[in-house]
């Protein structure tokens, strides 16, 4: 039992850690919150922008996790689902590493549509997909813990789990991104943008692959 608890704790930690990671990545939008506050010349705009970014990110994570939550009723196929999710994450990571291309449709989103922008970015860059193996791992420990249950009960607990993962992840994401945005807006200044913005594209692709490989190894 101790093993399961430590695995569970580790997985929740991964949910939080991935949230912090996504939040710190400028590509997930914190510079937009700085820009909003500077353009409107008031700090309130920063919080409003962060709220919009969080809403979009949360929606993306839920949209990706939901189908997997539903699939947890297919008890006999759990291993295959975990393998498929791991492979999907690896493929996206490899694609990002190899192509280095930016999805051009993102450039068509208007600067005022922050929720939509955040939603699309989280989908396009695989931020939401990165959570799937972690989520499936959590469902698995849950399942071991309670042995076999009625499909209905299983599904509702999976849905709650998906919602919980999405909320905890997004809270960590916006906490980290918000802290940087506030720091740049209040103390560090715009110069930080050119000093502190690193190209995370390869690291990002590698992160996806890492998550996928761990998922496969533990499936």
């Amino acid at each position, binding site marked *: 039992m101790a093993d399961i608890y430590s695995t569970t704790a580790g997985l929740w930690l991964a949910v939080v850690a991935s949230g912090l990671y996504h939040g710190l990545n400028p590509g997930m939008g914190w510079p937009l919150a700085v820009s909003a506050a*500077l353009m409107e010349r008031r700090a309130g705009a920063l919080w409003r922008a962060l709220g919009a970014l969080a809403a979009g990110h949360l929606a993306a994570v839920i949209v990706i996790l939901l189908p997997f939550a539903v699939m947890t009723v297919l008890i006999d196929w759990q291993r295959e689902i975990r393998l498929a999710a791991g492979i999907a994450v690896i493929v996206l990571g490899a694609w990002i590493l190899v192509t280095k291309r*930016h999805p051009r449709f*993102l*450039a068509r989103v208007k600067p005022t549509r922050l929720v939509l922008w955040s939603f699309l970015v989280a989908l396009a860059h695989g931020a939401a997909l990165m959570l799937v193996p972690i989520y499936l791992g959590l469902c698995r420990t849950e399942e071991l813990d309670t042995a076999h249950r009625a499909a209905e009960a299983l599904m509702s607990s999976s849905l709650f789990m998906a919602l919980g993962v999405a909320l905890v992840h997004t809270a960590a994401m916006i906490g980290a991104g918000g802290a940087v945005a506030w720091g740049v807006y209040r103390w560090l200044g715009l*110069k930080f943008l*050119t000093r502190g*913005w690193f*190209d995370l594209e390869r690291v990002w692709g590698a992160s996806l692959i890492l998550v996928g490989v761990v998922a496969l190894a533990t499936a």
Partner: protein
Amino acid sequence: MNLRPDPTFHPSPKLAMQAPAETLAFTLMLSPDASQPDGLAVVDVDPGSGTFGQILHQVIMPNKGDEFHHFGWNACSSALSPLTGHAFLERRYLIIPGIRSSRIYVVDVKEPLKAKIHKIIEPEEVFAKTGYSRPHTIHCGPEGIYVSTLGGGGKDGTDGPPGIFIMDCETFDVIGRYEIDRGSQDKQYDFWWNLPRDYMVSSEWGLPPQFENGLVPEDLLSNKYGHRIHFWNLRERKNIQTIDLGENHQMALEIRPAHDPVKEYGFCGVVVDTTNLEGSIWTWWRENGTWHAKKTVTIPPQPANPDDLPELLKGFSAVPPLVTDIDLSLDDKYLYVSCWGTGEMHQYDVSDPMNPKLAGKVEIGGIVKKTQHPNGKDFGYGPQMVEVSRDGKRVYWTNSLYSTWDEQFYPGERGGAMVKADVGANGGLTLDKTFFVEFPKGYRSHQIRLEGGDCSTDSFCYPSV
């Protein structure tokens, strides 16, 4: 590849002004009679260098008859836009269109003194993928590199309206037309935008038959050149408002929005008013969602003896100022205005954009005055393409307008030149006696780009605070 943003990308105009000064300038050279291929000159503008004011390197193109005019970078400070995440592009390539040939050269200037051609986009590709011809202004923006064109399809470029097309900012492939709804726009010249506010402004010169073989006096006197400016929803690619400056305000050319994206105004220069030969500057602005434009500067013509005037102007007994280029300093304080006809460079304090005040003036060249440079040399033609250093302390300009138009206003070969003026601490403009670039025989000079960006290239996504 860069792991951090290119050091020449700046979040705000203010930070760009604090960056190190330029040491090199890139200036286009054109052969007006197409007897030689056009080229790009790399000019030393570092006052501490022993070769200050000299051409250090030339990239000569493999074709003749391109007619170089304007050009731009593959990437600028707009790459720092948080929306598009292109922060790791390099400012490395100059995109140089030939407005006569419709051919586009991509020149790699990573090592400026070894600058070389990276890619050539043949005219057929531009025609086939866009239906436009005669590419002109280059700006890098949200969806890639935007290129305005002066002509539509067909041999004389009048089959359909001219417009803007987009190129991929990494592969330089022509992607296609920009406009989804162009409204009544049927002519094109310059364009620029405010990225966070998501609008674009474009202007009108004339259609190819109105300029390629020279200015058409009948068209000018019947007000058939462009006189409107268009406002676009940038990302919806839609013309949202058109303002007619009045048909007598012929040739609305350069569009210069305030650099600080918080500000929702800008300027446009009009070459000539056909009722009185004045040149004018217009201020445009947005108020409660609607665009407005107002004439805020007029520059009168100067009386002249018909004997001193070219055929085209003899009947008027006056020389028009001909406002052919304007440029705004990065702090949005000074607007520089080229008066190509009278041979003057004006500096206006536009701190109050609705009420510009003349702050400085330099006389050099000119149809009648032919003012010499302080070093005693003749300066052919008049002040034309003007570029301002990022810190606003130095202003550079060249002297050719457009091959066939040069001949009409300044008959005969008068030599390509590039000069520099220094800006006083409280305004004012003084020509630098020690800087006078002469171009190789037979070449004229056109637009200037400064190393690391200048006042007519970079678009900023964050305000100056």
